[in-house]
């Protein structure tokens, strides 16, 4: 059992963080982030050409994280690869020691730096979840053909409580769980009220007991960054938070404070089993946030932890 799965299986409160791979072939910063995050988080997500901007591949980034002693979560989107390429990459990733995967639809290519690209969407994120689970549990490819040495991934999915229609969001989560999601990482929470409403809907149908929900947070580095996030489709940022950041004399410190407060609130929401910190372009801040939250040391660092360490 890996760290993330081990912490959750033991009933612990999980902490994961996101690392954005570089827009170039130099892995130095990536490795440095991995070294900084490996002690304070249970697993590190490597994004898959996030916002459709070309970056070093998630799979290669996972291997760098492994080499740095971390525990990668391979993010896989359906935008750029069909069922053949995805299954192939999953086998390759597992063969290299990657044990966690996050299944996503992917941001549309019109957001990125190649808006004239053709998209794939051979399968969608729910079908992807089912495919990874089938590979693991039934030992066969999507086509039904058996494979030797199936990859035994710990399978994750995303959920966005801030997207519409709200009434369908818990049902969509139910579909993801039914398809195979062992854990969930949510879109970054700024609007606590909406998150609590969604979690109540999730608890009403018992989904919090069928999967491990990790609430997402983003520490805003500046008022400008927060304003940008407020415009991103699928994000919800309350106006009072924007005003608070704009009027702060030290915006970075205020951003950390806002994030810490959100983390504290989210921990007390029933059904939340962990936090996922997406410190976009600010990965260095993660250790401090985790420490401020009193979430150190991580459970797997204790000698008595039964999980098998990776890396």
């Amino acid at each position: 059992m890996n760290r993330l799965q081990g912490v959750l299986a033991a009933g612990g409160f999980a902490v994961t963080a996101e690392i954005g791979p570089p827009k170039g072939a130099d892995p130095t910063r990536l490795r440095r982030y991995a070294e900084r995050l490996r002690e304070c988080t249970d697993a590190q997500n490597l994004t898959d050409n996030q916002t459709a901007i070309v970056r070093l591949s998630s799979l290669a980034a996972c291997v760098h994280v492994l080499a740095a002693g971390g525990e990668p979560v391979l993010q896989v989107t359906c935008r750029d690869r069909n069922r053949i390429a995805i299954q192939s990459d999953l086998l390759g990733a597992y063969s290299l020691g990657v044990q966690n995967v996050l299944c996503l639809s992917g941001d549309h290519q019109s957001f990125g730096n190649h808006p004239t690209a053709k998209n794939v969407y051979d399968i969608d994120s729910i079908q992807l979840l089912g495919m990874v689970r089938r590979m693991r549990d039934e030992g066969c490819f999507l086509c039904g053909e058996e494979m030797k040495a199936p990859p035994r991934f710990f399978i994750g999915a995303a959920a966005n409580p801030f997207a519409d229609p709200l009434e369908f969001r818990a049902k969509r989560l139910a579909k993801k769980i039914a398809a195979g999601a062992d854990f969930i990482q949510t879109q970054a929470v700024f609007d606590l009220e909406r998150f609590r409403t969604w979690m109540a809907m999730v608890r009403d149908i018992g989904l919090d007991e069928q999967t491990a929900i990790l609430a997402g947070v983003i520490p805003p580095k500046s008022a400008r960054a927060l304003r940008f996030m407020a415009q991103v489709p699928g994000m919800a940022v309350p106006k009072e938070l924007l005003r608070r950041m704009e009027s702060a004399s030290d915006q970075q410190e205020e951003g950390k404070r806002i994030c810490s407060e959100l983390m504290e609130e989210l921990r007390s929401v029933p059904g939340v089993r962990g936090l996922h910190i997406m410190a976009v372009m600010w990965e260095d801040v993660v250790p401090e946030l985790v420490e401020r939250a009193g979430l150190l040391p991580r459970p797997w660092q204790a000698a008595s932890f039964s999980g098998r360490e990776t890396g």
Partner: protein
Amino acid sequence: MIVADRKPLAEILTLVRHAGRILLVGCQECVTVCLAGGEREVAELSLILRLARAQGRAQVDGPLEVITATVHRQCDDEFLAPLADQVANVDCVVSMSCGVGVQHMAAYFPHTWVVPALNTRFAGATIKQGLWEERCSLCGDCQLYRTGGICPITRCAKSLLNGPCGGSQEGHCEISADIPCAWQQIYDHLRTMGKLELIEEIVCVKDWSRARDGGLRRSVREDVS
């Protein structure tokens, strides 16, 4: 119907730059309805091309003689046959039909250079005067029974089959506030119809072999062939 729109004039002028005499052919089917390649558009383009060449605005100076015709249907041999004499006397045929018509014309007159004047856009419908919108991706395996007659393969930018992605907000798609989220539309319609349970089912991976991905598609009716 097939919806098309006219290529930019500069591009069409480039396509006919070596020609002194062309046959400009419209079609009375879909492209007439979407105001791209009917009799009126043929007359209009004919005039514009002749003027542009006469005024020296084209890459190649010199007059262009334009013969025009609009046939009932360019994707049918029967309606192309009467054009044979005119085709024999021009340097180039410019088709104002959809991509099907252009190809049919090129195949029917294999010794004549045939170029398109339109960009074929999609299979769609008239939404209101002057607005046409895509409705069908011709995937060969209709899923509309699941979604209350709203096609997610065509109308969702990611062709998702299991509900809206995380970018659906306030009824619109993540790619533009001008584009409605197909899954919000599906949700609203199914709720009205009392059939929301339909989108709670997991839809399995699609068989794309009946779509373009499976290679050239043919439809055969042996009873009439």
